């Protein structure tokens, strides 16, 4: 199994290495080429690295197999931007043995269930009113996802 280590390209940047485990995981012989600002502050890059860690774990369970695709569900309320995540993921796998691992992002809209009539509706423009009965009380039943849904393995 390939060993993931913190990016060594960062040591000159003056931060403790452990800080970057999450945000800047690269393979040992491949120095990180991301601009420092992106490494540190781009939220989605850390999320992308966590997805890659999960792929690595799953790969251990399929010796001889090759994971070619990973699917994630990103809720509207998750605070994660799908495009930025896609970009971050591509940068992380580029020129590594993981390439051409692709990330499929499914955006999950915010759905509410009316507390009065149980009607389920897509919430738009933060309007909590039930379109059926007009009641204001409803519960959020989806839209908070930040989940890995599936992986595709070529055996």
């Amino acid at each position, binding site marked *: 199994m390939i060993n993931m280590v913190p990016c060594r390209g960062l040591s000159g940047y003056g931060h403790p290495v452990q800080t970057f485990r999450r945000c800047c995981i690269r393979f040992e012989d491949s120095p990180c080429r991301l601009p420092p600002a992106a490494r540190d502050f781009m939220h989605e890059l*850390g999320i992308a690295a966590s997805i890659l860690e999960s792929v690595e774990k799953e790969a251990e369970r399929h010796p001889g197999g090759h994971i070619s695709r990973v699917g994630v569900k990103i809720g509207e309320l998750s*605070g994660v931007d799908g495009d930025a995540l896609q970009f971050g993921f591509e940068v992380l796998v580029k020129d590594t043995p993981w390439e051409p691992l692709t990330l499929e992002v499914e955006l999950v809209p915010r759905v509410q269930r009316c507390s009065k009539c149980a009607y389920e509706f897509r919430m738009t423009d933060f309007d909590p009113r039930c379109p059926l009965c007009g009641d204001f009380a409803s519960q959020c039943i989806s839209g908070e996802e930040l989940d890995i849904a599936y992986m595709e*393995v070529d055996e």
Partner: protein
Amino acid sequence: MNRIAVERKVLNENQILAEQLRERYRQNGVLCVNLISAPGSGKTALLERTLERMDNSTRVAVLTGDLQTENDAKRLAKFGFPVKQITTGGTCHLDAKMIERHLAGWSLEDLDLLIVENVGNLVCPSSYDLGEAAKIVLLSTTEGEDKPLKYPSIFFKSELMLLTKIDLLPYVPFNAGLARENARRVHPGMEIIDVSSITGEGLDRWMGWLQARQKKPVAADS
């Protein structure tokens, strides 16, 4: 090609650690709250006033997060309660591992309240569960009333919103009613307390909220 259903949280490792922390807090009867806001909304000032109002016998501790410097810990240590700075060195949020590491050396049995002051940021901290019983979001009157609409995730996930710097209301073009309305559009029924760390207005209500929240059983899921 074989498709395997995984159904795992992206931040699974963080989630596992957060659940362990939550269980430790539950066993020791500790209320943990996670304070989140944009930089400069007044988290540290509020904590200063909060600690100042607590008597010496209060079993409270604070973990305060920043990218750099020990400044906040120094400000908060004056009140005599245990305070530790978490310097993330660039990471834009605290995660459960950082909390676990910095709790080392403190005995949770000796605490009733643990206040975590997150890194000033309305985006990333909303994704990382720290095992807290409640997230608390601060919005100050020098920001825009539409912040809850721009950053809905954190306002949705927070149990309480503190509207800070209300002493500035006469001097800034901030519509507090609209800000509250926006917050409740994102999170219907969210509790909101108006506070000023300068005049002390609203602090009794905030202290009362903390006290009442300590009596509530810790929910299994934040």
